């Protein structure tokens, strides 16, 4: 550690903005501040600062995503074993999944971080930590059979158009990870839906098990095949096909507990999203005209990306509502709209993604109304005293 510090101090001058490797100034700084929290001390304002920084916040997010990621990796193997009709051990399934998922994660980080570093250098900014989380969420939103070049393309799109075009981390309107998925959904729909996308197919010399279809519960439900939708228990545990990280409600809940305990994500948004989803679900139950509308409202919370979206994406502080009151409204509408899209529009089985992106667009409006109320309160107080002056 002392040796590393000495080494960094030794090579640091070479990376000064006008030195030999000045083009890598931001990159160097990013790595230096990763190894060592800077020795910067306060010079104005408060003399003490809280221990929290953005790195820690993002790291907590990554820890919270880990259960869903690990389960997803195992599930890739498990679903494949079902597809080929074999019984695999835990490690066998996990190992198989790792080989499939790891490349997607590597590609997502490599592409995203390269663009981030390049932009930071170009703008003479420091590298923001935001992509550390987006870079992990993107793979978890992907179907396992996605070609790697598509992951690269979608990540590049998300970071360039979704984030850098708006000015980088903190300035974006849409959740970058969801943009990556939406991009692929509309550009390459055949890879993002249907029965072939979700489960690694049988390789050479293997045969598919007869009864296995590989369709997600949402796809079955949208097709009206309610008898084929997995049991609530299987959906809760995550033993179903789906995007890599979204299937296990249990694993996501573990992450949610951590996020709420540490205060990194807003429990208000999570709760109101669930309430919104349930509200729409019960409304469908009351007015059911088809089998999909009649399924118990709470089943929707277990299906597809609802839980993943509610916990990890609707709560993205940058793209969600930023006022405390606005968060309640925003979350409720996310949950409500997700079910509307999911149930009433068979063309888009995954309503959560579109619902969150839609509400991302409306979040500034919600905040505008909430802040406007405070402005009006102040103006009213003003007119109440005005006659006295």
């Amino acid at each position, binding site marked *: 550690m002392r040796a590393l510090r000495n080494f960094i101090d030794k090579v640091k001058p070479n990376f000064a903005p006008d030195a030999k490797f000045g083009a890598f100034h931001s990159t160097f700084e990013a790595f230096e501040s990763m190894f*060592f929290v800077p020795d*910067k001390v306060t010079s104005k304002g*408060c003399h003490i*600062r*809280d221990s929290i920084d953005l790195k820690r916040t993002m790291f907590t997010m990554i820890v919270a995503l880990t259960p869903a990621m690990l389960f997803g990796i195992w599930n890739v193997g498990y679903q494949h074993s079902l597809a080929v009709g074999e019984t695999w051990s835990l490690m066998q399934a996990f190992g198989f999944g790792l080989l499939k998922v790891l490349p997607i994660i590597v590609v997502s980080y490599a592409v995203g971080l390269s663009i981030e570093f390049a932009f930071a250098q170009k703008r003479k900014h420091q590298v923001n930590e935001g992509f550390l989380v987006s870079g992990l969420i993107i793979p978890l939103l992907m179907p396992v059979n996605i070609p790697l070049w598509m992951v690269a393309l979608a990540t590049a799109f998300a970071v360039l158009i979704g984030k850098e075009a708006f000015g980088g*981390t903190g300035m974006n309107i849409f959740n970058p990870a969801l943009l990556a998925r939406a991009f692929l959904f509309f550009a390459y729909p055949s890879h993002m839906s249907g029965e072939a996308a979700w489960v690694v197919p049988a390789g050479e010399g293997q045969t598919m098990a007869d009864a296995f279809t590989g369709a997600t519960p949402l796809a079955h439900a949208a097709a009206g095949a309610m008898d084929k939708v997995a049991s609530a228990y299987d959906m809760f545990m995550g033993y179903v096909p789906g995007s890599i990280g979204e299937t296990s409600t249990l694993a996501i809940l573990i992450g949610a507990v951590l996020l709420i305990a*540490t205060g990194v994500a807003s429990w208000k948004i999570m709760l109101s999203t669930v309430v919104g989803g349930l509200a729409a679900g019960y409304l469908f139950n009351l007015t059911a005209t088809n089998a999909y509308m009649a399924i118990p409202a709470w089943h929707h919370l277990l299906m597809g990306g609802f839980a993943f979206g509610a916990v990890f994406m609707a709560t993205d502080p940058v793209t969600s509502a930023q006022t405390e009151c606005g968060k309640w409204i925003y979350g409720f509408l996310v949950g409500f709209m997700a079910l509307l899209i999911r149930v009433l529009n068979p063309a888009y089985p995954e309503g959560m993604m579109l619902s969150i992106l839609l509400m991302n667009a409306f979040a500034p409006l919600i905040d505008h109304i909430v802040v406007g109320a405070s402005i009006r309160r102040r*103006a009213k107080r003003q007119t109440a005293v005005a006659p006295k002056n």
Partner: protein
Amino acid sequence: MPKIIKIRKGLNIPIIGDAEKILVRPKPSASYAVKPIDFWGITPRLCVEPGDTVKAGSPLFADKQRPQIVFTSPVSGTVADVVRGERRAIQEVVVTPDAEQIHEQFGIDEPAKLSREQVVDKMLRSGLWPHLTQRPFGVVADPEVQPRDIYISCFDTAPLAVDMDFALQGDGKSFQVGIEALRKLTTGEVHLGICADYPETRLLSGIKNVQKHYFSGPHPAGNVGVQIAQISPINKGEVVWTMRPQSVIMLGRLFLTGIYDASMVVATAGSGVSKPRYFQTTQGARLDGLLEGATTNADRPMRIISGNVLTGRKCEATGHLGFADNLISVIPEGKYHEFFGWLTPGFGKYSASRNFLSSLRIGKRYDLDTNYHGEERAYVVTGQYEKVMPFDIYPVYLIKAIMAGDIERMEQLGIYEVIEEDMALCEYVCTSKIEVQEVLRRGINTMMTELA
């Protein structure tokens, strides 16, 4: 039981080094200073030169725009130095005290028998006027203006703050006379903010002719700005004044004894002070006289702060107390690299967020230092400022309006209601390490230029 106003938002930072309630009477300091930089909205013009002899209460400098506002010497002695900073701006006017203290005589009066003009004139001449702060903007009050009300917060909730009850004891009569004088200045009320967490002291319960309000809750409940917002928020066009309780006592003494008696109780606190205590001293005293036994050494450099760790000013040991300050905080400097600091479990790292394991250690207090614990970033995390900001204000929106220079929006979002100290906790908790207080002052200065 009177109504208690409960402040729910806020934060008591668990920093070690509270002053022990022992009152020490040290030798007189080697020098005393008045610093123009302690006042916003003032351009100083010197009334003395180095070498001049002054009495306690003699003018050292005056405001260029409003020459009737003078800043007087807290002690009698010789003007030793005029310290100048960048562009020759006056930083400090330093006075070396005489062994025998001589005071300017301003006459003994009963404030109740004087007119408002006579009270104002007496305060202006004696140098007590600059103890009145105007809200909005936190500048020295304007003698031409009638404030809506006057507010005094009788307790301080800032980290390591002095126990006001202890510091004020025994000066009840001066306090009451000071209140009578203040009542002459406004047609409105004089409001006292009193801490409801402890029984009211004899001094405060004996004070009459004021509106008392009882507050309970974490910092910034003791900030006068928070109390104003709870009692009667400042609207556009309104002006209120505030005064610190130790200044009210000085004001009372002016009428009771006819002199500018700037003696006050000051505390030393923080882990850098080996015996944090209370000292009977005088406004503007040189710090090293009060810091004997501080643990500053080369192994562990310390930062000396005149004021509290959230809003105070960094000083050398040979520097002087700020005009408004009754606390000297000494905390360790944090100039070190921390290996993977963001990755550690953080048992020993205090955070108002719950991102470190230290949040499991309830009641634990920490030796906090001046390290940034990160780097400045764009705003990402939301809802953080709101938790420590007991105002009907959206702090991040206000800060962004200031950054954007949108004057109308600053006004709409409540810039008249806050000064730096009210948003200092926002800066402390900020994940993105935004310099909230500096930005806010920039906004306030913009508003002042705009309205001038």
